[in-house]
């Protein structure tokens, strides 16, 4: 039985879809395909690419609903670790099973469907994280910087969420010019169009980013003032905070400098009251009840 090796370095869902179509047409079962991607480097059986066989006499074909396709594509953005199954192999086994009439292969109760579901969830979650926790830093705007980004950000996502981030921020930022850099690529937007630039070799580092950035930023103080003040020390609940905002994101969020202090302050006395202790020591002002406020 022939083994087929497919090179998936820098591949995307569309490449995989073409390959999967041809493999199905040739009725190649999933056990006979080696998917070689950057994240599964050094596979024991890896060799040069193999030409795919011609279509079989009774080729398999599969029609998927838009919803199903979207799920598969989303799962393909999951970066698996060394001991997890390669994303492309998993996807091919699922479409193979579907083509063989096993309708449950994509359902969350199925053993493969559950992995797909778990990956879709992880990717969607990471998309949500980049939408939420990314922080733009305003850059100087003058003649010298006419075409330079007005806002820049650095983010280290766990999965391939660049496209999803691009779509989101282009809706938000109007005609502003902005740049988001991640180890795997940078999104550059000039206020109308955006594109993704990949590092020529290896990955972008936070140093590459810092080389671009002008980090002086006074207005961050306003945000810190707000963050500390909107916190209610009487309701201290660190566990929920950390669960909802994993600490791997804190590094690039300005409020990181406040968190420990607020917690220990709340533990040592401030916890009885909800009020910000900066206000407790200040002179207050009651208002007469004659229907006129005094200001």
């Amino acid at each position: 039985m022939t083994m087929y090796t497919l090179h998936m370095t820098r591949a995307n869902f569309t490449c995989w879809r073409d390959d999967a179509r041809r493999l199905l047409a040739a009725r190649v079962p999933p056990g006979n395909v080696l998917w070689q991607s950057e994240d599964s480097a050094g596979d024991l059986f890896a060799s040069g690419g193999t030409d795919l066989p011609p279509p079989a006499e009774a080729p398999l074909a599969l029609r998927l609903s838009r919803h199903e396709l979207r799920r598969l594509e989303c799962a393909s953005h999951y970066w698996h670790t060394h001991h997890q199954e390669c994303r492309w192999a998993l996807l091919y086994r699922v479409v193979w099973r579907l083509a063989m009439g096993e309708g449950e292969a994509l359902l969350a109760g199925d053993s493969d469907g559950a992995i797909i579901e778990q990956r879709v969830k992880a990717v969607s979650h990471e998309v949500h994280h980049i939408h939420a926790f990314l922080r733009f830093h305003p850059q100087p705007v003058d003649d010298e910087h006419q075409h330079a980004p007005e806002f820049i950000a650095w983010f280290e996502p766990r999965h391939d969420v660049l496209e999803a981030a691009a779509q989101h921020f282009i809706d938000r930022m109007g005609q502003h010019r902005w740049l988001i850099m991640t180890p795997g690529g940078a999104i550059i937007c000039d206020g109308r169009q955006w594109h993704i630039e990949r590092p020529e070799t290896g990955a972008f580092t936070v140093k590459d980013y810092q080389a671009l950035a002008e980090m002086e930023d006074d207005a961050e103080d306003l945000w810190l003032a707000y963050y500390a003040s909107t916190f209610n020390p009487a309701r201290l609940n660190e566990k929920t905070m950390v669960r909802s905002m994993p600490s791997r994101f804190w590094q690039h969020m300005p409020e990181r400098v406040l968190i420990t202090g607020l917690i220990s302050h709340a533990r040592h006395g401030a916890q009885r009251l909800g009020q910000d202790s900066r206000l407790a020591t200040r002179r207050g002002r009651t208002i007469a009840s004659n229907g006129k406020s005094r200001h």
Partner: protein
Amino acid sequence: MQLTDKLIVLADAAKYDASCASSGAPKRSSKGQKGLGATNGNGICHSFTPDGRCVALLKILMTNFCLYDCQYCINRRSSNVPRARFSVDEIVRLTLDFYRRNLISGLFLSSGIIRSNDYTMEALVRVARTLRIEHQFRGYIHLKTIPDASPDLIRQAGLYADRLSVNVELPTSQSLERLAPEKSDTTIRHAMSTIRDGLEEATAEPKAPRFSPGGQSTQMIVGADETDDHTILGNVQSLYSQYHLKRVYYSAFSPIPESPSSVPLIAPPLLREHRLYQADFLIRGYGFHADELLTGPGNLSLDIDPKLAWALNHRELFPIDLDSADMYMIARVPGIGVTSAHRIDTLRRERRIRYSDLTRLGCSMKKLAPFITTQDYRPRQAGLERHALLAQLQTSTPAQMALL
């Protein structure tokens, strides 16, 4: 007063409002256009403070000067707090600046009552209008409505806001009378009806001007008075049905400085607040009736969640067979949520349900085990009495959430 100082005063004054939702807005985009901001119906939590609550919106008061003397409120006129007032431009500048940095998804603006109800409401509307018209801001705006403001101003607010809310403040009108002498249950409900009518018109007539597309919500403070959960849930159920509310928020009463003797000076009842949210969710999402969750006066149990409590009181309905039971009953099994119930239903059209499917669906196995059967599973606990089963299912000793 410096802007930073104002922000500290007016964010502190606003944080007792529990609502932080930035969801429910229509799809809006600024792609390639002048202006700023987008909404797509989903909320985004941009940060979390150490109290575990999310920061989605810039939540501030326009001013904490206030003519009212609501006993539970830190901004009551007799309270000795620093006072401040933002100008329209200051609020606009803060909102846009925070928004561009991706710190927030929009603005949640409320205010103490100054001069008159209409004067205050008009100022709130002016902020929203300036953001929307002058700056073409397409992010989220939530306006807290002043209940005694004229209906016309409420309608204007609906043109610019994604969500409007009027707080019922306390669970019963008697408590409101006692603790918030200047407010009245009647006018609060009147304002909620005005918003409801606006919402109905906007849905009924496609050409009608836009009106608060994210609907309306309200908040009540829990633990500032003696009202029990049974009364609260009963009132909440009628609020939902009368005013098309998107959400009722429950805010555990946090003790405030120089607390008047009319309100308690104890830690906020956070676990009770949590149980109320769970019960509220069962009423909104699972078709539970308030009377099913609490059959008589009293509070929800703190040691088990209300769905489990309900199932334990209805052992005669269980266990149910997942291959044949109604969807409605599957969603009522403790440990199976609405999403999982749908997935079970889809899967059982392909093949019969196995016990291990439920693990893969992420159901809470320990909770559901006594209440279901599948072709390969029958609960051992079927014969156990309610109290024996309860002892098995209790995960930990009942306690209020960790404080001090």
